[in-house]
């Protein structure tokens, strides 16, 4: 079955620390990949996405993610986090012709000022 797994359920960092959140998907064919963010009390919004082309994609607020096909991974990174990055982060994938987005369980990020 197609699935998306996020390695870290809870991450706590200090401001200015670097961030990397892991995401792996299980599908060997064409895949569209997404990272969504949910700030406290708000709805989900798109952080960045990969459909094709340059495997290093840049999103809003200084986030980036790298698609590594051989590792079935799409890890999210940010060189220096801020307190305002405190949020829940979700990785998701559209696999092949699947009409449904497959979601990871999310990673809760807390940033201490």
């Amino acid at each position, binding site marked *: 079955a197609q699935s998306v797994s996020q390695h870290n359920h809870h991450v706590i960092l200090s401001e200015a620390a670097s961030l990397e959140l892991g995401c792996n998907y299980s599908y060997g064919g064409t895949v*569209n990949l997404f990272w*969504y963010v949910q700030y406290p009390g708000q*709805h*989900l919004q798109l952080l960045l996405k990969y459909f094709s082309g340059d495997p290093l994609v840049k999103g809003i607020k200084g986030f980036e993610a790298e698609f590594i096909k051989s590792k079935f991974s799409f890890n999210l990174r940010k060189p220096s986090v801020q307190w305002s990055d405190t949020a829940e982060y979700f990785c998701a994938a559209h696999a092949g012709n699947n*009409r449904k*987005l497959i*979601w990871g369980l*999310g990673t809760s990020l807390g940033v201490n000022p």
Partner: protein
Amino acid sequence: NAGVTQTPKFRILKIGQSMTLQCTQDMNHNYMYWYRQDPGMGLKLIYYSVGAGITDKGEVPNGYNVSRSTTEDFPLRLELAAPSQTSVYFCASSRSQETQYFGPGTRLLVL
């Protein structure tokens, strides 16, 4: 441009009551979705629709019903509310397999 709107924002139901969660989008998206979000459980797809008159079940459809008579609207119906349906409900829309745009959510408490 309002995007995706949901009503109500918050509701308390008694066990056995029924209600309809409203969702409207003004982006002319064909695809619409209903999710529920529970702490630590991520998003679970309840129902989705790929166009007016076409709906299909997601992962957790039991206890819910949907209809899609227009492109804009995708209401979610709870017929006999149960405590297990206490959750936050999000509606989303997209153009095919692209970015999903989410509404602000409906927080439902069933007592």
